[in-house]
C-alpha cells in the first residue's frame, strides 16, 4: 500500500531539545495516532511534516511530495492536506461565512455544500463570529474547513483537546466517515488516548524527541496486558519467554508489582497463577514511559 507520509532520519535541533533522528510511515487508508508527554516533540514533528519548520536532516515525503531539496510543501500538495491545529486559528472577528469564502478562494476542490452540511450538523450558523463560538464549536468549524476540500490526508494536532465527551464523539464520527472509504489517511497527535483507542490503526509514542514504540493498536489494546505479581515472582518473569528483547517494564505499587506483558494470552498460559488484565493505551503509555526495565 502507498504511504501518505514517509519520514526517514528526520531530525530537528533546538537549544535544549532535539527531535529525532526518527523514521515514521503513515500508510494510505490508516489512522496513526501520535502520543507522548508535553514537550516530547509531537508538535515539532507535525510542524516538520507541514513544512512550518525546516528539518535539519532526513528524508521526508508527504503525499508523493519529496521535501529533501525544498523547505516548503508545494501548494498542490497542501491542497490535498487538511489540517486542524490545537486552536481554532481563524481570526476572531471573522464570521463563519467569511471562513467559507476563504475556503472557496484557497481550494480548487472546495465543496460548499459539504461545508454547509458539516456546519449544520454541528449547529454552527454562517452569521456567527469566530469569537462567539465555544471551543468545541471552534474546533468543529476547523474540522469542517479541513474536510470540505476533500483532502487525502488529515493532520490533527490535539484537535479534540478541551472538548466535552459529546463534542469529541461528534468529531470522531466526522473522522470515521472521512476514512471509511480506505483512500484517506489521518495522522493525529492527541493526549486523549480513548479517542485513539476508538479510531487509530497504529500508535506511535514519542518521548524526548525519539520514537519509543510504533505498534498496531491491537498489539497494545488487545494483546498486551498488565500482570499484577509479587516481588518474589519478578525474577521468574524476567527469565521467561514472555519478556521481549527489551526486558519487562515494571511499576511498583504498595502491595504488588505491575508488569507490562506484550502478550497477555501467552503470559496467562505460562503463569496461570498471576492475574493479568487487558492493557489500555493509557496503561501501556504509563508503563512504557514511567516503568523501570527489569
Amino acid at each position, binding site marked *: 500500500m502507498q504511504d501518505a507520509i514517509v519520514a526517514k532520519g528526520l531530525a530537528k535541533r533546538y537549544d535544549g531539545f532535539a527531535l529525532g533522528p526518527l523514521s515514521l510511515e503513515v500508510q494510505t487508508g490508516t489512522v496513526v495516532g501520535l502520543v507522548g508527554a508535553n514537550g516530547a516533540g509531537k508538535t515539532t514533528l507535525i*510542524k516538520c511534516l*507541514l513544512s*512550518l519548520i525546516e528539518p535539519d536532516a532526513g528524508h521526508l515525503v508527504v503525499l508523493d511530495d519529496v521535501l529533501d531539496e525544498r*523547505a516548503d510543501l508545494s*501548494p498542490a500538495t497542501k491542497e490535498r492536506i487538511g*489540517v486542524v491545529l490545537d486552536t481554532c*486559528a481563524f481570526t*476572531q472577528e471573522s464570521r463563519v461565512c*467569511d471562513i467559507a469564502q476563504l475556503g472557496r478562494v*484557497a481550494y480548487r476542490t472546495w465543496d460548499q455544500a459539504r461545508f454547509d452540511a458539516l456546519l449544520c450538523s454541528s449547529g454552527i450558523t454562517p452569521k456567527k463570529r469566530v469569537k462567539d463560538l465555544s471551543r468545541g464549536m471552534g474546533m468543529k468549524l476547523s474540522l469542517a474547513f479541513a474536510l470540505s476540500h476533500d483532502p487525502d490526508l488529515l493532520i490533527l494536532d490535539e484537535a479534540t483537546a478541551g472538548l466535552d465527551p459529546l463534542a469529541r464523539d461528534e468529531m470522531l464520527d466526522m473522522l470515521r466517515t472521512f476514512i471509511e472509504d480506505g483512500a484517506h489517511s489521518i495522522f493525529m497527535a492527541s493526549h486523549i488516548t480513548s479517542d485513539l483507542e476508538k479510531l487509530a490503526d497504529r500508535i506511535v509514542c514519542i518521548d524526548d524527541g525519539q520514537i519509543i514504540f510504533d505498534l498496531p493498536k491491537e498489539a497494545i489494546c488487545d494483546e498486551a496486558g498488565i500482570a499484577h505479581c509479587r516481588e518474589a515472582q519478578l525474577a521468574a518473569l524476567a527469565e521467561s519467554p514472555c519478556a521481549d528483547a527489551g526486558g519487562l517494564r515494571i511499576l511498583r505499587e504498595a502491595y504488588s508489582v505491575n508488569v507490562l506483558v506484550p502478550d497477555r494470552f501467552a503470559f496467562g498460559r505460562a503463569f496461570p497463577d498471576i492475574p493479568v488484565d487487558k492493557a489500555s493505551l493509557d496503561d501501556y503509555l504509563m508503563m512504557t514511559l514511567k516503568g523501570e526495565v527489569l
Partner: protein
Amino acid sequence: MRAMIATDLVTMKNALLQLGISCAVVAVVIAVMMQSLVASLAAICAMIPFMYLFSISAYDEMNGWERFRLTLPISRKQVAYGRYVSTLIVVIACCLIAVLFAVVVMAVMEALPADMQQPALMATENPPAVVFGVCVRVGALILFVAALSLPPIMRFGMTKGTRLAPVVLIMLFAFGIWLTADNGLLDAELPGGLGTMNELFAHANGPSIPITLIIIAVALIAFAISALISAKLYERRQF
C-alpha cells in the same frame, strides 16, 4: 497569490469597514474644523492604510493564524507578495475614496446657499491637481512606510517586528534629513525644488506633476524592493 490577497482582505473586511466609518467622521471633522480639504484628504489616505498595515500584521499572530495560513495551498512567496499587493490595493482604494470624498464635499459646498459656503472646501481653492497631488503623495508616503516596516514584520512577526520597524524608519528619515537638509551632504547637488525634505512635501499644495511622479516612482521602487527582501526573509522563517 490570489488566495493570499483574498485571505488578507476577507480577514480585514470587518475591521476595514469600522476603520472606514471612523475615518469618514475624522475627515469631516478635520474639513469643517480646520477649514482644509487637503488635510482631510491626507487623513483618509493615511489613516486606513496605516492601520490596515499594522492590524493585519497583528491578526497574523492571533490564535496561530499565520502558522495555519501556511497549511493552505499558498507558498511562502505568495504569502509575502500577497501581503504587499493587498496593502497596495488598500492604499489605492483609499486614494480613490479620498478623491470621491473631495468631489462630494465640493458638490455639497456648491449646493449650499452662498452665505453658508466655505471657500476653503470648494473647487476654486482645491483644483484637481491639488486633490490628486495630495492623495497620491500621501499614498506614496504610506507605501514608503510599508516598504520599511514590512520586512522586519515578515521576518520576526508583529511583536518583534514593530520593535525594529520604528528604529529602521527613524534611522532612514534621519539619514534622509542629513543628506538633504540645508548644508546637508546633497544640499548643493539637489535641484532647487528638492532642497529640503520640507520643500519636497510642501509641493503637495501646488500642481507639481514631475515631483509627484518622482515620489510615486521612488515609493513603488522601494515597495517592490521591499517585497523581494520580505519574500526572501519569509522563506527562511520558522514557525
